[in-house]
């Protein structure tokens, strides 16, 4: 085909092939540390490059795979754009052929090749969606059978603008701090007492919306300890920017003693108490609070109340106003 013939003849390409590429290849061993530096040197800033837990890892591998596949088509296209734009400028007096306006093989290729790429991507999407599906990640299946501990249940309720975490099995609750044991599946049920938020712990938990009157789910399991930052990712009003919660993944022993400690907290959490803490409040330094004797059914009570029309109105001065 004419395109490839002329590419063959291109002086630029010959230069690339004979000089530039070999030179780069020779230098490569020394240059190889550069991207590594970029990844490790910049270190933990790039949170998404350092996933922890199976679900987050699978998501990151999807990112790499999908990006790689699309680059197969984006890179040549970019190169061709730049090359043609440069090569065929008038002042260069390159070959000129105003009759080249149609070519059946090229047309077939330009529909066909992207189609093949999309088919590959569709298959990978299909499998990854089921693997990391927030409400029931396929990756966490089959675990928890015989002998292993059952999943830890955490009910999450967002208010304006705090996070309430309830551990119904343990009858404790916390505000703006999430503590879970390593190596055990954690399952979340989420709802909001006011507006929509988005539950997000960048390296750990996939994003999922938290909506009033509705129940969404999320899950993860992390096999090492560590501290992570979680926050709301979906704008929810004046206090949104301060809606962080610390996430501590601790050893089972530490978790056990933390639970004991919390169960001794003088503050209790039940529906009446909830109505008090759910009033609009900006918790600027995400100060945690701990509650014992938490009502294991509080989550359902709040959903039901919100479905019946419970709202926590935001005062004019707090919500808007300049």
């Amino acid at each position: 085909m004419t395109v490839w013939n002329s590419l063959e003849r291109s002086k630029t390409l010959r230069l690339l092939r004979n000089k530039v590429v070999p030179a780069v290849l020779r230098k490569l061993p020394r240059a190889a540390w550069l991207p590594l530096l970029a990844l490790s040197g910049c270190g933990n800033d790039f949170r998404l490059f350092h996933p922890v837990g199976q679900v987050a890892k699978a998501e990151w591998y999807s990112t790499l795979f999908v990006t790689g596949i699309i680059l197969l088509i984006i890179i040549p296209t970019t190169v061709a754009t730049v090359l043609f734009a440069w090569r065929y400028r008038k002042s260069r007096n390159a070959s000129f052929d105003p009759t080249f306006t149609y070519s059946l093989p090229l047309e077939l290729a330009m529909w066909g090749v992207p189609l093949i790429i999309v088919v590959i991507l569709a298959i990978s999407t299909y499998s990854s969606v089921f693997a990391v599906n927030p409400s029931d990640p396929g990756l966490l299946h089959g675990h928890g059978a015989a002998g292993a501990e059952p999943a830890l249940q955490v009910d999450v309720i967002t208010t304006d603008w705090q996070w309430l975490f309830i551990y119904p099995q343990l009858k404790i609750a916390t505000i703006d701090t999430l503590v879970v044991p390593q190596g055990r599946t954690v399952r979340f049920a989420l709802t909001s007492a006011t507006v929509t938020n988005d539950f997000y712990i960048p390296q750990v938990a996939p994003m999922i919306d938290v909506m009033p009157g509705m129940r969404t789910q999320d899950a993860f399991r992390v096999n090492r300890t560590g501290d992570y930052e979680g926050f709301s990712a979906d704008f929810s009003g004046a206090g949104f920017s301060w809606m962080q919660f610390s996430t501590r993944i601790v050893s089972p022993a530490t978790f056990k003693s933390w639970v004991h400690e919390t169960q001794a907290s003088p503050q209790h959490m039940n529906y009446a108490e909830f109505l008090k803490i759910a009033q609009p409040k900006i918790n600027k330094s995400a100060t945690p609070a701990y509650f014992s004797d938490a009502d294991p059914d509080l989550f359902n009570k709040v959903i039901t109340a919100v479905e019946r029309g419970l709202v926590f109105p935001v005062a004019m001065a707090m919500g808007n106003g300049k």
Partner: protein
Amino acid sequence: MLVHLQGPWSPWFGRLTLGDIPYTNPVIIFAFLFTVVAGIALAVPVLYYRKLGYIFREWLCSVDHKKIGVMYIILGLVMMFRGFIDGMMIRTQQVTADGPHSPGFLSAQHGYLPPAHFDQIYSSHGTLMIIFAVGPILTGLGNIIVPLQIGARDMAFPRMNAISLWLSVSGAMLIMASLFIGDFSTAGWVGLIPLTELPYSPSVGVDYWMWALQISSIGTTLNAINIITTIIAMRAPGMRWDRLPIFTWTTLSTNIIGLTAFPILGVALALLGADRYLGTHFFTGGQGGNLMLYTDLFWIWGHPEVYFLVLPAFGIISEIIPTFSEKPLFGYTTMVAATFAIAGVAWAVWLHHFFTMGAGPWVNTFFSVATMLVGIPTGVKVFNWILTMYRGRITYTTPMLWSVSAILMLLIGGLTGIMLANPAINYTVHNSVFVIAHFHCMVLLIAFAIFAAIIYWFPKVFGFRLDEHSSKRFFIFFVLGTVTVFTAMFALGFMGETRRLDYLYDPQWLPLLIVEEIGIVFYCISVGYFFRMLYVSIRDRGRNQCGADPWGTARTLEFLTHSPVPFYNFAVTPHVNALDELAWRRANGHADTPPDHYEPVHMPNSSMIPVIIGVLSFGFGFGMVWRIWWMAGFSLLAIIALIILGSFMPDPGYTISPEEMREMEAQHRAPGIMADSHPPHPAAEERLV
């Protein structure tokens, strides 16, 4: 039954009190002074040269599609300027409010904007840029170019065309009013639900947003009807479908989207209005409402809307690349097919905006694959552009520079778009600034195409070229700004920065935020060059006059008639012989053949009704926002009365006789868009209404 409101209400002024005018806020005062100075700078020359009557008669009451197009573009550019200032303020707030130890100024705890103010600014930034800047500019270009490309004298419904324009203007004015009277929505350009409901947004902000969108979307719908009818019914003889210029094709497809999508937005906003005004529960968490219904409705409009914007941009690129490559467009038929494929698939992908809302894996997979399918026709377009350049003879005028850069932006936007289309990836970057960077690649690609189009078609409309020297510098700094800001933003997305943050808790983001701020400096410089370009071009207009085809290699019908285009467009309706008619005539030596005889030409009269409807719809919107019922009611009744009245008033138009036409054509330069109305018909003025 009306809902209970926080705060006072009175029959005459509704919710409006003196306290709603934020005269204590220094930022607002500055904005107010700026607006006043700009207003005076415009008003003084108009009054000095006694042009008030001219502007009213020749512009505000005009039904000429070119003038309406130009006014659309002016509206869009002014709104884009304000949107740009908003963007600058957002970036500056974020760079000063990063980390718990970042200082606070002007009563903000971090940075210089308290959350309530910051949230209004990003909400108005998005609303302005998408609905009131890019949208009107593209509509304006369609208005100017489409009738010329198909050899028509005007749009199918000239008066309705003016009504569309004035509805858009009145929506934009509502947003401007919100800056100085009351406040604007804090719930983003998408109107996050249920944040927009009364208990969570008790002030008038959401109402401003809602009515501004509602009013302008009616304008857009009317305009879509107009353009579709024009393209179907008013093509010159010989303009068969297979000879339709590609920009006209993309405008047709885009307006089919517009006609079918905008009413959905209207319904979503009307239901939200019912919730806010009548106390219904369509979208509340409680009492039977379902907030997901709003999210679905919004994006069933919202996704087609983004293609509504991008398709004309594709059309512009497809016109400019052949002109400056001196080659016909590669694969015309495929290009049209790809356009309609994109428009069609755009209907079936809306759920990709909320993969995280908890739909099941099968649903997410379906919408994911549908979204990726859009990539195929989009890719086809890129390949066709590249192959148009292949073996071309490319001259790098500024429109061509913008177009080639737009292709590169599209490649990056497409790459990241397909990444986002995979739910597994989306769960990690949805609502992060990665998404912001993705769609800014896309929206800036549209902006690139817009700047290309303005420079490309400006000489056609005004008869002189824009200054290449400063317009190239405008281009360079704008691209530099874009690369700097959005490379950093992609990186910040991977660092986990989410969108709409007034205060950023992570000090590690600071270096990249500073890089973004540097990009903003480049943008500022480019805006300076933009104004310089306008100034120099107007100053030197005598030197830069141009003929029918200012570029020498244009291919389509609009470059057949004079520059500036006379009010009657073509002296005789052209007969079309080929795709790329001008190129065909040039090749066959017919480009400059004068017509052998003239025929009477029938033209529509100007009318005052559209601009009055515009003013009244502003009154209606303002009345509804502040719940001043008498004002809203009066305006609405008056609009209805005017429309009925207008329909019964015959508009005979007027006719240009062959002799008059010969006389005008014989003049050295055709009477252009700035010229006073055409002396032959003083009667036209009497029939202004």
